[in-house]
């Protein structure tokens, strides 16, 4: 990585590396890239180190290392309850998004018309909306129709902001499927269900898994919508953590962060292994 050259030109025989122009370019780009890398990764590393502090308060560098703050997490029952709530909400949200998103994505891949384009824009638009505005709009809406804020309303709201990710990843994976594929299958006498099971679904599967992963994390981590729509009786983890970080800034907050970072990183590596996650993240369909 470190020795890769950013300027293709520098490899050509005509341009020597002594070339001032090429050098400054290389240096500028390398400097930028490495600053960006440090900026991106340092906070995660720092929080991980801080979470293993042996001291009583959050300082960096820590006075010594220990896992006592991870053990101290056991004494926060509300935190576990909140984690549990968040897991449930994220699970239901993801399941609902899979059903709704998969069905819709099937139609969007099969037909290209002005209407499907408009629908796709509709399905994707929650990503671009300020989530706090969506949260407030939903709160006003639930008040208007007389619904109480509850886990159900929370899941509904998370589906709204989570479904674009699934629709998108499924569309990406289905875009590899040529219509002719299915036509061939149909002309060979396969019925719709057979085609779906043996052609469409296997192709979409990776998209479903990658999308579910992203939707799940989006819901699990959502705070802006949850702030408005979570009931105080069923608090979710991010809201709980925000209170903890703002009011009892102690090392436990870092150890929760550590647990979350480890969990996310592990899941990410698994996802990369099985469904090539980055293919879905790095794409601009």
């Amino acid at each position, binding site marked *: 990585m470190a020795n890769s050259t950013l300027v293709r030109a520098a490899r050509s025989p005509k341009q020597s590396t002594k070339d001032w122009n090429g050098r400054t370019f290389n240096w500028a780009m390398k400097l930028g890239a490495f600053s960006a890398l440090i900026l991106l990764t340092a906070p995660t590393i720092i929080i991980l180190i801080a979470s293993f502090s042996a001291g*009583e308060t959050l300082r960096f560098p820590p006075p010594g290392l220990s896992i006592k703050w991870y053990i101290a997490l056991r004494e926060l029952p509300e935190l576990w309850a909140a984690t549990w709530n968040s897991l449930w909400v994220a699970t239901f949200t993801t399941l609902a998004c899979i059903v709704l998103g998969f069905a819709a994505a099937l139609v969007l891949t099969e037909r290209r018309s002005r209407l499907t384009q408009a629908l796709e*824009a*509709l399905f994707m*638009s929650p990503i671009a909306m300020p989530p706090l505005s969506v949260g407030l709009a939903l709160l006003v809406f639930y008040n208007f129709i007389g619904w109480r804020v509850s886990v159900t309303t929370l899941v509904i709201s998370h589906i709204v902001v989570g479904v674009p990710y699934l629709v998108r990843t499924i569309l990406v994976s289905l875009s590899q499927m040529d219509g002719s594929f299915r036509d061939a299958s149909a002309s060979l006498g396969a019925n719709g269900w057979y085609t779906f099971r043996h052609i469409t679904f296997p192709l979409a599967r990776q998209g479903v898994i990658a999308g579910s992963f992203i939707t799940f994390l989006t819901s699990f981590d959502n705070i802006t919508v949850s702030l408005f729509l979570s*009931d105080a009786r069923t608090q979710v983890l991010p809201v709980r953590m925000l209170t903890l970080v703002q*009011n009892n800034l102690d090392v436990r907050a870092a150890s929760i962060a550590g647990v979350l970072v480890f969990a996310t990183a592990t899941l990410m590596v698994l996802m990369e292994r099985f469904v090539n996650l980055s293919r879905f993240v790095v794409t601009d369909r």
Partner: protein
Amino acid sequence: MVNRRLSHLSRRSVLGAGLFVGSSMLLKACGQSQTSTPAPEGEEAAASAEGEGGAIGGSVSAVAYPGIWEEAHREVVASQVKTNQDIDATIVPMLANDQVAQLIAAPDNPPFDVCLLDEGPFRAAPREDILQPFPVDMSPSFANLFPDFQGGEEVWGPTVAVTAIGIGYNADRYESAPAAWEEFWNPENAGRIGLVTMNSSLGTAFMVEVAKRFGGSEADIEVAFERIQELLPNVAAVAPSPGALATLLQQGEVDIAPVYMNAVLSLQDAGLNMGWAIPEGGSVGIRATMSIVKNPQASVEAAAAYIDTVISAEAQNVLAASPYFFGPTNSEVQLSGPFEELFSTDPQDFISQLIYLDWDTINLNRPEWIERFNREVAV
């Protein structure tokens, strides 16, 4: 990418508006049938409960202010109420004004069963609409409270703690304790001062005390606003809540701030070199009250048992000691440690040494003051 067709979208959303209104009405109709079933189980449960021995059981969701309150109530009160009455208590961290707002918003379905309010919000709140009278006969510890803390004739709930407001400072940075609020204006404090918004009793009491020192009163804190303007260039941070302000002091973000005594003492306990001083003219005492809300989800018994635990000598003896240091309201509590150094070992003495503000007068102007403060401190 995705968004390039958003312009089409808006047109379509206008076209579909009729459909939305129709569907909303339909949902509203469904919603109303859903909300029309608030069960008045409270009184029934209360009636059947009397005189039965043994644990009460059930669960209760009770508010505590974020920060040290939350921690103390979880570790002390929740565990005692579990051992003694087999009640599972959940602590909801929330500030007083937010509690009142939520109770007013959903009186049929309050998000918690027991609320915790400082004098200011408590006296400003529409108590008849959101609280229910405290069932004194369900609370054996109630009689041991100092008479002043039994809630007067209406008895919406007992006072559960008295916390003292003073000057918290980083002892590494100050050779001697600051002696008066006026010292905030000393040039040496540039960039070190922490404040808290007037949304909290702490912030409001600070402003009122400053006003008093410069000739104002509970009714008129104009002079405090003027003086704060001078102070602003030296203010390092304005915290959204007292808990957050204590955090800033702990992290060394601010070195001097108006804070509650127990917040600083618990930081000392964690090994930090912090000091807390009674300002000239006295330390303001804030009395916090706990009440059972209207239409609680928990049984009134369980809620009352929770409050009874908070005011019991058993809990308050722990809450008044290291590392929590809450001022007690139960007459059987003995004080020690920092209380002895700063005030007295006798709770009655401690309570009478504090000064109390006229919150009814303050409440007349408080909403405007909160708004004005938020605007004036904005950079």
